[in-house]
């Protein structure tokens, strides 16, 4: 063994001994953040196992099912989907390496068919920003082996020309909408109609999945709640009489009464002018 070889080994050994320390101090300086990751299985007909960095994350995962949100340390993941029971070394139905999962993000990884019908994995970022009070968020994701579609609510197109693997979203008043999915630019219904309850403070994520040629197009739904905003306040009174009864100086009311009437007058005429 040459000197050079020994030096190299020693260096490697030192490196190995030093690295964990460095890593530990780095971790101390910046704690590892978790990401919130859900997984949706939207490939028709195949029960699968999902591996992350070689370890089983999900087993016997059935089409049309969704995991609860998982907290995963931020970092990069090698994801592999195999037939159920195939084992970590089994043939990959879908494989995606170096999938970056940033800390703090809320992501849904969807195993689905591409427009051409090939199984793929697509990570979608879930919009978990706060909603205004009384509002609901709808997100629609095209994850089906199908051409472009329009999404209609009550028969009117709301989202048009959505293609795989895109998503669209909108913040709407909370309530129930009768939604269906039609082939883009037509009234040929591909999925639905279905009554979708757009719950206040919730991001209702609707996936169109399956295959048009396989005649198994359907909807999957994921809900992320807790995004509600609060009303800005409570008005509570418009007359002022109670304040006078409670002993608040009457002169204040008398003094400003004329001004208030003036304001009301102007307001009323402004409303009239607009209507």
């Amino acid at each position, binding site marked *: 063994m040459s000197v050079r070889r020994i030096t190299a080994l020693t260096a490697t050994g030192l490196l190995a001994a030093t690295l964990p320390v460095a890593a530990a101090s780095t971790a101390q300086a910046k704690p590892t953040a978790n990401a919130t990751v859900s997984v949706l299985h939207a490939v028709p007909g195949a029960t699968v196992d999902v591996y*992350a*960095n070689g*370890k089983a994350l999900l087993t016997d995962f*059935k089409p049309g*099912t969704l*995991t*609860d949100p*998982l907290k995963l340390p*931020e*970092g990069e993941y090698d994801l592999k989907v195999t037939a159920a029971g195939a084992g970590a070394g089994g043939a990959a139905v879908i494989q995606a390496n*170096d*999938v970056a999962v*940033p800390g703090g*993000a809320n*992501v849904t990884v969807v195993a689905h068919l591409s427009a051409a019908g090939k199984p793929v*994995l*697509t*990570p979608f*970022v879930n*919009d978990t*920003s706060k909603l*205004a009070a*009384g509002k609901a968020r709808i997100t629609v994701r095209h994850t089906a082996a199908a051409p472009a579609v329009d999404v209609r*609510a009550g028969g009117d197109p709301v*989202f048009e020309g*959505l*293609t*795989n693997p*895109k998503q*669209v*979203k*909108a913040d*709407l008043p909370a309530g*129930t909408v009768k939604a269906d999915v039609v082939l883009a630019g037509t009234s040929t219904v591909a999925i639905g109609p*279905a009554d979708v309850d757009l719950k206040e403070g919730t991001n*209702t994520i609707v*996936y169109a999945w399956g295959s048009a040629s396989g005649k198994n197009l359907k909807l*999957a*739904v994921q809900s992320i709640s807790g995004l*509600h905003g*609060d*009303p*800005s306040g*409570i*008005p*509570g*009174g*418009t*007359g*002022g*009489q*109670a*304040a*006078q*009864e409670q002993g608040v100086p009457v002169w*204040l009311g008398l003094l*400003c*009464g004329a*001004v*208030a009437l003036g304001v009301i007058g102007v307001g009323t005429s402004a409303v009239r002018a607009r209507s």
Partner: protein
Amino acid sequence: MTAPFTSLHAARSLVVVAMILLLGGCGDSGASSSSSTAPEGGRVESVGPATGGSPTPGRPAPPPEPSAPVRTRAAELPKATSGPAPDRVTISSIGLELPVRAVGVAADGQMDLPVDPAVVGWYRFGPVPADQEGAVVLGGHLDSREYGVGPLVRLRKLRVGALIEVRTTDGGTARYQVEGVRDVDKQKLAVGELFARTGARRLHLVTCGGPYDPNGGGYRDNLVVTAAAR
């Protein structure tokens, strides 16, 4: 309040980068142009994954250590489930018995109240009495130009320990015990606490209070009654 938004935005940018990296790896390449049009009155963004690029080496994540089996469930349309709504509020100690009507949010972003001060509004997006946590919020006008002084003027006489009964549409009654009757400057009203959907089961009954500014300002304060479920 700006910090979380900033970090969220940063996280989103990172994920877009992640998508670019991933899509290079998993091979489903599609055009990344926008495919959406805005619905009337709605905000729409197309944020589909971008494509291109190649995976770059990064810090590998430790393998996940699922402590418990990952739970899965059918990704079905959720059923609209909500307990019975309040339909009447009774406070015997001050001789108050008023109908309750479900209300939402007014155009100005405030809680929408029934115009008649003899009718109380229940904030329908918040908890119902049957919910296991959070505040049931009732609110009503103290007075109105049209109707004059309303019965909620008596709330000021309410004492700590008094009983508030809320009847629900199923005929059940939820009971609350008054813990506080306070005037709060409207500018300082902690709406997050007032409309809380978590924490102890409680009732917040709100009207107006303080001096009245007829010159557009209205009442300065909210009179806030807090009561604990019992």
